[in-house]
C-alpha cells in the first residue's frame, strides 16, 4: 500500500513537472508572438475592453467595500491603543501592499480569467483555431498573445483603482462614520506610504499577477479538451490554479521585495 502511494506521488510529480514544462513552452511561444509583427492593436484594445472595462464594476465596488471594512476593523483595533489617528496609514498600507494587488488578481481571475479560458476553449472545440492553422495563421499570435498582453496591462490599472476606492471607503468609515478628522486620515496616509517600497512594490506585484493569470487562463483554454465538458473543466481549473498561484507568488514577492 505504501509502495502504491509512493508510486502515485511519483506519477503526480512527473505529470506536474511535465505540465510546468508545457506551460513554459507555451509562455515562451506567446512571448515571441507578442513581440513579432504585425501588432494586433485592434485585438489588444478589444481585450482591454473585455478584461478591464468590464471588470470595473466588480473591482470598484469590492475596493470600496474592502476599504470600508478595513476602516471599521482598523478603527476598532487602533482605538484600543489610542492610535486611531493612524487609521489612514493602516488602511493605506494594507491596501497598497497586499489587498489591492491580491484581491484584484483574485477577482480578475474569477471574472476575466475564466471568461478568457472559456472563450479560447470554445474556439478549440469549434475548430476555429484549427481553421486558423489551415490558413497558415498562428492562433497564438492572433488570439492568445493579445489576450495575455491585455491581462498584463490591465492588472496594475485595476489594482490602482481598487486601492483608490478602498482608500475612499476607509475615509468614509473613518471620517464620516467614526468621526476622525479628514485631514488626519489623509496626512497619516501620506506620511506612511513611500513610493519606492510600497507603491512600486504594489504595481510590481500586480504586474506579476497579470502575467500569471494571463498565462494560466490562456494556456488552460488553449489546451482544453474540445468538448463543452472539457471547456468547463478548463475554466474551473483556471480559477483554482490561478488563484492558488497568485497567493503563493504573493508570499515570495513579499518576502523577496520586502514589501
Amino acid at each position: 500500500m505504501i509502495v502504491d502511494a509512493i508510486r502515485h506521488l511519483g506519477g503526480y510529480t512527473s505529470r506536474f513537472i511535465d505540465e510546468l514544462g508545457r506551460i513554459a513552452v507555451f509562455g515562451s511561444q506567446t512571448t515571441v508572438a507578442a513581440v513579432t509583427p504585425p501588432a494586433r492593436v485592434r485585438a489588444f484594445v478589444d481585450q482591454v475592453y473585455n478584461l478591464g472595462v468590464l471588470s470595473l464594476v466588480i473591482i470598484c465596488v469590492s475596493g470600496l467595500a474592502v476599504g470600508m471594512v478595513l476602516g471599521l476593523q482598523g478603527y476598532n483595533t487602533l482605538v484600543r491603543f489610542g492610535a486611531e489617528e493612524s487609521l489612514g496609514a493602516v488602511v493605506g498600507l494594507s491596501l497598497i501592499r497586499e489587498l489591492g494587488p491580491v484581491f484584484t488578481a483574485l477577482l480578475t481571475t474569477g471574472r476575466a480569467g475564466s471568461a478568457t479560458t472559456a472563450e479560447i476553449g470554445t474556439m478549440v472545440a469549434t475548430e476555429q483555431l484549427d481553421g486558423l492553422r489551415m490558413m497558415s495563421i498562428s492562433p497564438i499570435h492572433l488570439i492568445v498573445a493579445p489576450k495575455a498582453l491585455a491581462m498584463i496591462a490591465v492588472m496594475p490599472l485595476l489594482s490602482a483603482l481598487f486601492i483608490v476606492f478602498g482608500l475612499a471607503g476607509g475615509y468614509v468609515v473613518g471620517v464620516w462614520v467614526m468621526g476622525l478628522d479628514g485631514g488626519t486620515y489623509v496626512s497619516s496616509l501620506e506620511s506612511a506610504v513611500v513610493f519606492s517600497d510600497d507603491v512600486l512594490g504594489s504595481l510590481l506585484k500586480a504586474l506579476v499577477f497579470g502575467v500569471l493569470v494571463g498565462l494560466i487562463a490562456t494556456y488552460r483554454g488553449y489546451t482544453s479538451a474540445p468538448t463543452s465538458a472539457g471547456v468547463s473543466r478548463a475554466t474551473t481549473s483556471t480559477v483554482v490554479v490561478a488563484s492558488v498561484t497568485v497567493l503563493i507568488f504573493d508570499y515570495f514577492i513579499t518576502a523577496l521585495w520586502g514589501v
Partner: protein
Amino acid sequence: MEASPHAQDAAVALTDVEMSFDGRPVLHGLTCSFPRGKISVVLGGSGAGKTTILRVIGGLVRHQKGKVMIAGQDTSRFGDREMNEIRRKLGMMFQGGALLDSLTIFDNLALPLRERTKLGEPAIADEVRKQLTAVGLANVDGLLPGQLSGGMIKRAALARAIITNPEILMCDEPFSGLDPISVKRIEALLRRINRELGITMLISSHHIPSTLRLADQVILLQQNHLAAGTPEELRASKDPRVAEFLNEEVDETLVDEDMFRSIDPERAPQARHLR
C-alpha cells in the same frame, strides 16, 4: 527506390498511414491516393476515420507511421513552418464552419487575404464580395456567424476556403446537418468549383446520395477494410461489406452527427456504443 503504389498524377497520396488517438487506432496502415483535379470522397460510418484523414493531411494531427505526400513532398516530419508553406496550397472547409465568431462574415473571408497576401483593402474587398456572390451570400457580409443558418455558414466556410486559390480543397462533412435543398446547393457549388477552377477535392462524408452523384473516386473506409473505385464500380461491387454499407447508410444519413459531438464519452458511457 520502391515502386510507388500511387498514380503519377496524385495530388495527395497516403502510404501505410497509421494513426491512433490515446492508444485507440483509427487508421490502420492506410494506403490511398487522390488524383489531381478530381473530386474524391472518403465515405464511411462515424468514427471510421474520414475526418482523421483530412486532419492528417492538413497537419493538424501527426500520424505515427507511414508517408503523406502532398504535391510531391513527404510531410510526415514537417514542423510548423514547413507545414505552413504546404498549407498555402490547401484550403479546408470545416464541418462546423470554424469561422471566427467575433468577426463579421466579411472580415472572416478577408482574414486570410489580409494575413497572407499583400493586397490593399480595396482589392481585398473586391475579392471578398466576388466570393460571397459566388456562394450566394452577398447581402450578409455584415453579419456575425452566430446570426447565420447552418447552410449559410457552410457556404461562407466554403468561400473562405477557396478565397486564397488553393490547389487542393478539403471538405469535412460538407453535407452534414443540412436540409435536402441546402445539400443540393452545396453539391452544386462544389461541382462548379471543381469544373471551373480545376481544384482537387477531398471530401469526407457519410451522405451516400450526394457522394455517388459528386465523386469521381470513392474511397469507402470501414474497420480494417478499404474499398476504392468510381461510384459505378462501388454500386456494382459484389463485396458484401460494400453492399451492406451502401444500403444501411441510407438510414444513418438522417441522423445529425452533430448530436453526438457534445456528449463527453467519459461522462455518458452509454453514448459510447452509439458511435
